[in-house]
C-alpha cells in the first residue's frame, strides 16, 4: 500500500520534506474547493507557495517542541503532525475537528502535538511562544518554541517587545518570518522601514535571510537556530523569502482586489517549493508520495464531510476551563 512507503522516511529527508510540502499543497487546494462549494464557511488564508517554510522548520523540531502559528496556519499545523482529517474537519466546523469545531481555520490547535494554535491577530503569537519557551526551560530539558509570523507582523509593537524579552532572557525561541511580500495588500517596501533581519539584530538576535521556497534551505537554517536554542544560546530570527501563490484570503476570489500585477504573480509562481523538492526525488519515489498524499487527502475530505456538525446546545461549551456556565442570552 502506498501509505507505507513514505512513513519510513524521516521528516527531514528529501522524501520526508517532499511529502510535507506536497501534503500541504494538496490539502490547501482541496480546502479552497471546499470553500467554493460552501462546505467551509468564512473562507481560509491559503498557504500555497509557502509550504517549504512549515516543512523545513517543523522537520527541525521534536514532537515535544511547541509552535505558535498565524491566520495562515494550516501548513504549520500539518507539518507539526496534526491529522489532516481532523484539521480539515476543523476548517469545516465539524465536531470531530481538532478544536471540536470551535476554532476553525484561524485557530486550529493540537496541544498534544505542541501546536499551541493558529492565531488570528497579526504579531500576537511571539510573546506567547516566548512564555512557552520560558516555561519549557524552567522544566529543565531542551525543548524549544517557534513563532511563525508574516512580514506584516514586524510592525506590531508586541512582537518587537517579545523579541526584546526573548533576547534579554536568552529564551529558546525561533522567530520565523515568512516574508511573502505583502501584508494583505500592502507591499513590504510600503510598510517596513529598515529590514526585517535588522529588527532581530537590533536586539542582538542572530538573524538570517534564507530562500523560503527551498525546503532544504529552510531546514538547514532552522536546524542551526534550534541547535543554538537547545544549547542555551537564546533566540534566533529566520526571515524566509517566499511568495503567496493564492489570495490573501479566499474572499479575494470573488472580490477581485487588484494589487499584484499578473506578470508578478506568474513569475512569483515559477519557483515552486513542491517542484523544487520534487526534483530531488526519483520519479518512482515522487509518484509514490503523490499517490500516498492523494489517498491521505481524499480520506481527510471524506472524514471531514462525513463528520457530524456540533450540537448548538453546546455552543459555549469549553468557554471556561473550569466548566463554569455562562448565563444564557436570548430572552432567557
Amino acid at each position, binding site marked *: 500500500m502506498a501509505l507505507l512507503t513514505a512513513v519510513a522516511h524521516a521528516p527531514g529527508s528529501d522524501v520526508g520534506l517532499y511529502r510535507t510540502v506536497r501534503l500541504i499543497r494538496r490539502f490547501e487546494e482541496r480546502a479552497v474547493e471546499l470553500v467554493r462549494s460552501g462546505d467551509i464557511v468564512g473562507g481560509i488564508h491559503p498557504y500555497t507557495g509557502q509550504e517549504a517554510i512549515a516543512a523545513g522548520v517543523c522537520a527541525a523540531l521534536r514532537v515535544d517542541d511547541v509552535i505558535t502559528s498565524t491566520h495562515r496556519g494550516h501548513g504549520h499545523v500539518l507539518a507539526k503532525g496534526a491529522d489532516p482529517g481532523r484539521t480539515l474537519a476543523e476548517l469545516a466546523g465539524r465536531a470531530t475537528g481538532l478544536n471540536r469545531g470551535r*476554532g476553525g481555520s484561524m485557530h486550529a490547535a493540537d496541544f498534544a502535538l505542541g501546536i499551541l494554535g493558529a492565531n488570528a491577530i497579526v504579531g500576537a503569537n511571539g510573546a506567547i511562544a516566548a*512564555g512557552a519557551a520560558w516555561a519549557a526551560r524552567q522544566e529543565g530539558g531542551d525543548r524549544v518554541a517557534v513563532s511563525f509570523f508574516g512580514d506584516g507582523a514586524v510592525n506590531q509593537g508586541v512582537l518587537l517587545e517579545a523579541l526584546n524579552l526573548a533576547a534579554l532572557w536568552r529564551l529558546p525561541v525561533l522567530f520565523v518570518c515568512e516574508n511573502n511580500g505583502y501584508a494583505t495588500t500592502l507591499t513590504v517596501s510600503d510598510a517596513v522601514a529598515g529590514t526585517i533581519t535588522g529588527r532581530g539584530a537590533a536586539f542582538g538576535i542572530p538573524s538570517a535571510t534564507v530562500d523560503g521556497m527551498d525546503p532544504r534551505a529552510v531546514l538547514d537554517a532552522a536546524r542551526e537556530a534550534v541547535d543554538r536554542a537547545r544549547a542555551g544560546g537564546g533566540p534566533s530570527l529566520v526571515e524566509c523569502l517566499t511568495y503567496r501563490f493564492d489570495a490573501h484570503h479566499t474572499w479575494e476570489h470573488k472580490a477581485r482586489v487588484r494589487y499584484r500585477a499578473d506578470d508578478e504573480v506568474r513569475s512569483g509562481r515559477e519557483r515552486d517549493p513542491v517542484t523544487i523538492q520534487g526534483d530531488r526525488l526519483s520519479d518512482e519515489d515522487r509518484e509514490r508520495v503523490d499517490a500516498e498524499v492523494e489517498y491521505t487527502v481524499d480520506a481527510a475530505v471524506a472524514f471531514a464531510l462525513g463528520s457530524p456538525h456540533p450540537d448548538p446546545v453546546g455552543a459555549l461549551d469549553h468557554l471556561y476551563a473550569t466548566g463554569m456556565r455562562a448565563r444564557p442570552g436570548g430572552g432567557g
Partner: protein
Amino acid sequence: MPWLSYQKALNRALGDELARDPAVFVLGEDVRVAVSNVTAGLFKRFGPDRVLDTPLSEQAFTSFATGAALSGRRPVIEFQIPALLYLAFEQIVNQAHKFSLMTGGQARVPVTYLVPGSGSKTGWAGQHSDHPYALFAHAGVKTAVPATPEDAYGLLTSAIRDDDPVVVFAPAAALGKRVDVDHEGLGPVPLGVGRVHREGQDVTVVAIGHLVHDALAVAEELADEVSVEVFDPRTVYPFDWDGLAASVARTGRLVVVDDSNRMCGLAAEVVATAAERFDLVSPPVRVTRPDGAVVPFALALDHAVQPDRAQLAAAITKVLKQ
C-alpha cells in the same frame, strides 16, 4: 488576634501560593523591590525564577504569561496602574480568555492579573484613576474586587488556583483597611459567592470593593431610620445572582453603589437583572461615576466624580419613599 492589612493580605496570599505550588510565579514591573508593597519579601524568599521583573512591555509580558500558562505554569501579573489593562486588553480578553473555547477545551490559561491600587488614588489624574472591572465582566473574564483583607487573601488565592484567567482589582481606597484576624483562619474564598456584611430588612445596598466600607458607614448613620442590608458580590463576574435574589427577597428594595461609569457599568447590569428577575416594591437607584467620566486632577474635582456617602444616603432615602 493579630491585625492584617489588606495590602499585607495580598502579600501573604502570594507568598502562601508561591510556597504551596511550584508552578506559581509572579511577574510585573518593579516586583523585585516591591514598589507597590504587594510583593515585599518575595524575591528574597523565592528567587529570580519565581519573581520576575519585566521591562515596561505590558503587552508582551501579558502574553508571555499566557504562553507560560499554556505550558503548565500559574503566572500572577502585577499591574501597577489600572489603565495598563487597556494596553493589555487584547492580550487578556482576545487571547488568554478565548483560548479555552477556541481550542475546544484543549487549553487552560490560569493567569491572575492583579491590580493593587485600582480606582482613584486621589490626585493621580486621568490616566491612573480608572476602575474598569465592568469591562472585564462584560467580556466574560472572571473578575474579583475584594473589599476586606480576609476577602483579598481568599479571592486572590482562589484566583491563582483557578484554571481560567482572573482579574483581581484591589481598590486603592481599600488597601489600607485592617482587620483583626486569626491567620490560621485565612483560606480561599470561592469566586461567585457574595457576602452579606450587614443584615437589614428595608433595603439591599449592593456595594463593590472599597464602597462596601462606605455602604456600611451609611447604614450605621441611618440605622435609626432604616434597616440597611449591605451585599458585597465580591466577584463581579461571575456574579452571585442567587445571593442577591435572596437578599432582595427579604428587603424588596435595591440601591447599587458602583465605581463604574454609569453607562454600561456594573450597576446597570445589576439594575437590569433586578428588573427582570426580582419583585421590587420601588424602582432601584444607582450611585455611580458619571457617564464616560475622566477623573480630573484637582482633588475637589476628583472627588466630585466618585460615588460618595451623601449620594448613597440620598439614594436609600429615595427608594424608601417610593
